[in-house]
């Protein structure tokens, strides 16, 4: 399999991932608006605070569904890096497998930080 072919497959997989994520967000959004659409929005002041993995606690079921869609979306570029690592591995390019592992470690630190 050529590099180009592999990249094409990865590109299509990413698009599928985005479509799936958007569908989950949309479904959650429709649910959210149907259930809570009549309440008054309050995005003007920050009510956040620390939230640990899987980042859905304290959310209504509709908002949690949206959040899961967003997590799927965030996973797409991470998946791309994993695919690249596999591709470099197939080419037996140790230097770039190492470089990709460093990128994955940084991503893992960010995403798993809340453990």
């Amino acid at each position: 399999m050529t590099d180009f072919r592999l990249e094409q497959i990865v590109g299509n997989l990413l698009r599928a991932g985005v479509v799936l994520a958007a569908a989950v967000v949309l479904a959650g959004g429709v649910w959210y608006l149907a259930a809570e659409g009549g309440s008054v929005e309050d995005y003007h002041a920050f009510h956040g605070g620390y939230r640990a993995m899987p980042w859905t606690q304290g959310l209504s079921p509709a908002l949690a569904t949206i959040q899961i869609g967003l997590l799927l979306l965030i996973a797409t570029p991470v998946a791309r890096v994993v695919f690249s690592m596999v591709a470099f591995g197939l080419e037996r390019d140790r230097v770039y497998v190492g470089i990709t592992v460093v990128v994955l470690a940084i991503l893992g630190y960010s995403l798993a930080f809340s453990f």
Partner: protein
Amino acid sequence: MTVASFSGVVMLVSALAGFLGALTGLGGGVVVTPVLTLLLGVDMHYAMGASLVSVIATSSGAAAAYVKEGYSNVRAGMLLEIATTAGAVVGAHLTSTVPVPVLAIVFGAVLLYSAWHSMTELPARSAAAGDPLAERLKLNGAFPGPTGVVAYQVTRVKAGFGLMTVAGLISGLLGIGSGAMKVVAMDQVMRIPFKVSTATSNFMIGVTAAASAGIYLRHGYIHPGLAMPVMLGVLGGSLMGARLLGRAKVRVLRRLFAVVIAIMAVEMVYSGVSGGMR
């Protein structure tokens, strides 16, 4: 305003931002935060979280189109991602300590830069000797040109890596893709051909944003109720804009959009200085 009508307004402006961003090549994410904060009064951190999510959506959504053209330099992208993701993690951590007015002022400065960047032609590049480091790291590449395969040599790898760290830091600090800066680092500093630079930058933007996303989630900046209309709007708008790309004459539109960005930049700095944003 009720959640339903507010979500409708946010989705409309996000779709417009995504549409214009894709059509003009300036990126939609960069105007989402100023519109949400200045026009709709949304909290800065929530706006940054929603913008960051939309950046990932447009980057991954456009990946297949860029791959089809066969331009991106995967090795250069991966190497430079060490710089952008590390910078992004630091920037994302800083968001909780840097006061919001300072964030607004930095955001305004970055907006002004991207408006200026889009109005000026990049200077012509003189020939430069290749970098032995680029040779060792197999960064030199080739891309399909109109008259056959064009080979290119990559220069100043360390300088490009340094600039990418800054691009990542700004991306994490403000919740934007910082695509313009990434392209400058590759095209102007490392002498990677423009088309290869833009394709590689698109790939890197999503990964850089993902590096900030974990920390944003932990801080609670990503409010699903707000991120929902922003992500769906920007994604839908940018897909429509990309479809029109090449068919529409964008010179005038590009100038106009740059002027809009510049006005928002000034507003952003003003509200930061005057204490209008807390």
